[in-house]
């Protein structure tokens, strides 16, 4: 992360203190500047916490219906193939209500870049259980802890690993190392789109202190120590690269 904030991102005021969204949107901005695509990039943000970005960054932006970010982005891309298109959504959108949309865009290898903010809960609605909630994790709809016998824990990245797509990676928005990797992955994902390689998806493990009921530092610890057990980090598909 640079010391100078990217010009194309001018706020993160609506996100809760310690939230990963502000970091992620800044990384998207920095990457767009480095790739010199600020004036061409079209972003699609999911409703709920992700949607704040529509007022925080200087890109033409569509707020999509919950979980329909990817088809919305694909529609834009077909009409404006010269524009890089980035869909920005949470884990609930990508792996719950929009699971079919995610899998099928990957199956078609649609040439868009997807950023998934995985914080293990539905954030905006008040921290309900998501497919990404860890076994035993207490949420507003699993007050005694998520019962693994009734609800599994889904890693969307694992599901996509077998698909013929351009790029697939996961990083954590924790620590200098995590941030550096997150940024590198976002950049590579967009580069693959610019090269016409097809679908790219980067999942970012992200602290949601508000709904984890943890102070920001502890929320980061949860991401780094607990979430990574279920959601391994790294690059999994890198077409034409060294993966």
């Amino acid at each position: 992360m640079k010391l100078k904030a990217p010009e194309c991102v001018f706020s993160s005021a609506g996100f809760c203190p310690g939230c990963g969204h502000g970091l992620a949107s800044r990384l998207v901005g920095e990457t767009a500047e480095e790739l010199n695509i600020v004036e061409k990039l079209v972003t699609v943000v999911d409703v709920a916490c992700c949607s704040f970005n529509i007022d925080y960054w200087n890109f033409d932006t569509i707020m999509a219906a919950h979980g329909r970010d990817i088809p919305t982005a694909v529609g834009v891309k077909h009409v404006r193939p010269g524009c890089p298109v980035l869909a920005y959504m949470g884990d609930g959108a990508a792996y719950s209500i929009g699971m079919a949309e995610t899998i099928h865009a990957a199956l078609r290898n649609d040439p868009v870049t997807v950023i998934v903010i995985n914080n293990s809960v539905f954030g905006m609605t008040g921290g309900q259980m998501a497919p990404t909630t860890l076994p035993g994790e207490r949420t507003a709809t699993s007050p005694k802890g998520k019962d693994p016998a009734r609800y599994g824990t889904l890693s969307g990245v694992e599901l996509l690993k077998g698909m013929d797509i351009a790029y697939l990676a996961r990083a954590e928005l924790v620590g200098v190392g995590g941030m550096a990797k997150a940024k590198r992955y976002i950049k590579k994902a967009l580069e693959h789109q610019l090269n016409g390689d097809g679908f790219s998806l980067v999942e970012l493990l992200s602290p949601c202190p508000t709904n984890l009921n943890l102070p920001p530092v502890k929320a980061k610890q949860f991401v780094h120590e607990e979430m990574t057990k279920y959601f391994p980090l790294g690059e999994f598909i890198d077409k034409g690269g060294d993966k």
Partner: protein
Amino acid sequence: MAKELMKGNEALAEAAIRAGCRFYSGYPITPQTEILEYLSWRMDEVGGTFVQTESELAGINMLLGAAAAGARALTSSAGPGFSLNQEGISYLVAADLPAVIIDVMRIGTGLGDIAQGQGDYWQLTRGGGHGDYRTIVLAPASVQENCDMMETAFDLAEKYRHPVLIASDAAIGQMAEGVNLPELREHNIDSFDWAVRGCRHGDAPRKIQNTYYTRPDYVEYLRDKYAAMDSEQRWESYMADDADVVLVAYGISSRVAKEAVNEARAEGFRLGLIRPITLWPFPNRAFEECKNAKAYMTVEINILGQMADDVRLAVRDTRPVDFYGTFFGLPESDVIVEKAKAMLEKEGK
């Protein structure tokens, strides 16, 4: 130009191409699938985009993205698939986006069945999704009208920045008739400044979202928009001005109703027809010319007579309004005449 023989659904698809539509995303469902099949190869020929999506939800939301990027975008569905489209139709309205959505109506509630039906009238005319809206609805009654309405639909959608629905049905969709096709035209995706394309340095970024976030005059803007749309009332009157009983029917039913008018007139019974071409705005003005009408009867393929309420409103309940509705099967002209006569008798002539 020589006429071409085309199926109704194919005519809708070809007319969309000729109206400059270069984006289609949708999912198979009977009885509209020919639109999808036709565009799967035709879009290639004209350099457009065809995507068969994983569901109608993906289809309508992909269309939303294409519309937001400035394309003339189309999807089509029927029955349960059209219900899934409602999420996106409601949002197209909220986000001020033009697009055209075709409903080739099939019969029945729930899963329904694949025969022709007109049971989506309420869903089409009342704003079939959640929230507080309506859309212009065009109802073709012939394959030629399928051709003629498509450009009108896109023009109206762009004029009002609002989705426009086309209410066809299985019978019009499946029948073949000779048609004159319109000229092929191109649409410029940069026609509208609001369409996303990347934000130049120093410009304000374009935002596609619920317009109440961006329009301080949201309520007035929408009320004015709907009031302006009311001027788009379209209809055909057929011997309605002197008729004792006036039928009201659209789509395939209107063709049977017209036959009934001819049969009745041949035996001296003054029957007439008003055929709404816009289902919304409902053509209230059409009823001003029915100077002699003692009663009105809608002819519809549904069991509740969905359009009858609109007729009651149009005539301000000054005359009795009844309906003749069928299920699984077209209305029959002799039954129409019989029922119309019975209505007139009840009114004491």
